[in-house]
């Protein structure tokens, strides 16, 4: 291998129209973030390894690019922004009046198989909202996400909305070793009804409990799903999740935006830090999600400040596959450049705001 000319697997270079498109998409999204009063924060490229493990959980530990600095500390190149921003909100910004609204844009690195236009180094852009009441903050970030998609000209999208508390409440009330809960989660996350039934047959649960677990993969759709779920559970945590989702859904109905939401109580995947709602955004004819987010109330407390938090991030690499390339990525300069062969002439043309090409 010639390391001087090859690029490491998973890295990418954006040139010309691709680079312009990246910046145009970024500007469009930032203008929406600013419009909703989210302040940009530019966090460091690296931090202590532990910061990310706290957030993402040990499951993703091995996907983090880590190294040891000269003092022997274990550092990591950021694999996501949420932990970094939660740390900042809990430390540097702890004196700020709530709610604190932050936004970010930049590259993250994860050691995984490049997939769906996302390499090992990929671009994320998102917002985090700290210290607000879930009833309003959850709706707010969803609205920010929707407006950004709209401004990007993405019309055919669907937001898949669930809550970790629904499944969490059910799990709390069953006595199963962690290993089997993970297995249950795996089966639910792929809606594998057949294997789920087999697993249930092997466990000696009472029928009502089995019925709930077997119903979870089907709890996806509109408002009627919440009514159906309500009939199934009796524990407080699950009911709280249903009521919260009902409330959110009701608000979106009032705004005439409810058809954008799909309730999915079978959605159990996600980073360890999620604690309430979680959502993923899918666009028609793109096989992978373009955005994902949720509530992670416990995360800022890991860094010393107990405050509720919710946020989401876009995958720019994926959004760029669906935005209109004429609008995003076109050369922004209004006129063609002027050829000029003297420095004086070039300076004059630049003062006039013209594009210059020295020859």
């Amino acid at each position: 291998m010639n390391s001087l000319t090859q690029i490491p697997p998973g890295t990418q270079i954006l040139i010309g129209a691709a680079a312009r498109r990246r910046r145009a998409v970024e500007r469009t999204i930032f203008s929406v973030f600013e419009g909703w009063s989210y302040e940009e924060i530019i966090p460091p490229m690296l931090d202590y390894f532990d910061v990310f493990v706290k957030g993402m959980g040990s499951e993703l530990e091995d996907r983090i690019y880590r190294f040891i600095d000269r003092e022997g500390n274990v550092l990591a190149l950021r694999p996501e922004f949420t932990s970094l921003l939660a740390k900042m909100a809990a430390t540097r910004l702890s004196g700020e009046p709530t709610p604190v609204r932050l936004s970010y844009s930049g590259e993250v690195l994860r050691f995984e198989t490049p997939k769906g236009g996302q390499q090992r180094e990929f671009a994320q852009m998102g917002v985090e909202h700290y210290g607000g009441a879930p009833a309003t903050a959850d709706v707010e970030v969803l609205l920010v996400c929707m407006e950004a998609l709209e401004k990007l000209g993405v019309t055919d999208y669907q937001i898949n909305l669930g809550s970790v508390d629904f499944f969490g409440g059910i799990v709390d009330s069953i006595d199963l070793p962690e290993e089997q809960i993970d297995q249950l989660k795996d089966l639910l996350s792929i809606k594998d009804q057949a294997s789920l039934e087999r697993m249930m047959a092997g466990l000696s649960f009472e029928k009502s409990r089995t019925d709930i677990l077997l119903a979870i993969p089907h709890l996806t759709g509109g408002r009627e799903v919440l009514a159906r779920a309500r009939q199934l559970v009796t524990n407080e945590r699950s009911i709280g999740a249903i009521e919260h989702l009902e409330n959110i859904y009701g608000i979106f109905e009032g705004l005439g935006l409810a058809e954008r939401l799909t309730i999915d109580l079978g959605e159990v995947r996600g980073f360890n830090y999620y604690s309430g709602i979680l959502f993923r955004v899918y666009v028609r004819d793109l096989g992978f999600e373009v955005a994902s987010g949720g509530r992670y109330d416990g995360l800022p407390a890991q860094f010393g400040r107990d405050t509720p938090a919710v946020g989401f991030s876009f995958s720019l690499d994926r959004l760029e596959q669906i935005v209109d390339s004429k609008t995003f990525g076109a050369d922004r300069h209004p006129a063609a450049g002027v050829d000029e062969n003297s420095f004086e002439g070039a300076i004059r043309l630049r003062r006039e705001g013209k594009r210059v090409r020295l020859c």
Partner: protein
Amino acid sequence: MIAIAKGRFLEPSLNLLRSAGIDFQENLAESRRLIFDSTDGRCRAILVKPMDAPTYVEYGAADMGIAGRDVILESQADLLQPLDLGFGKCKIAVAVPNRTRSDDELARTVVRVATKYPHITLEHFNAQGIAVEIIPLSGSIELAPLVGLADRIVDLVESGRTLVENGLEIVEVITESSARLIVNRASYQTKRKEIVQLVETLEGLV
């Protein structure tokens, strides 16, 4: 768009789709074309190699597909698997030559395993703390231990006859396999009505 695997799954897949009201004018098994429209124009099918079906669906090139659980597990693709279609039942099993004694096995520090399922095999033995050397093969796996290429094999077993005829016996079943309906995660959300409807129709048939 549905990805249908060529080979032994083709006929049962087509039969199942036909009972669900999805029929094709052409004979897919005989045609050389790879893309077909259903008679009612409601859906389009692509013919792919069995091992490739999960890839087409994971990337959303096909919204759904039919693939064996063995292939899905091996591909490590992130997919929804809402339905066991009931046909193509078999096991993924570890087999050894009849004459193998446990002493022989223990004497080896690394066990050589021939298979066309390197991921499944590695995961299975790693979980048991057994060091293995994977010998990747694409067919006639049973041959490997007979000619000294491997100590064990991990392979798909349907009736077990091929194993018996080659002097091999199953020592462990890793998992059961059968044909599964697989669905792309994004398609499931953005084309939910059509997909859920088809899943429910198929569920009533299997």
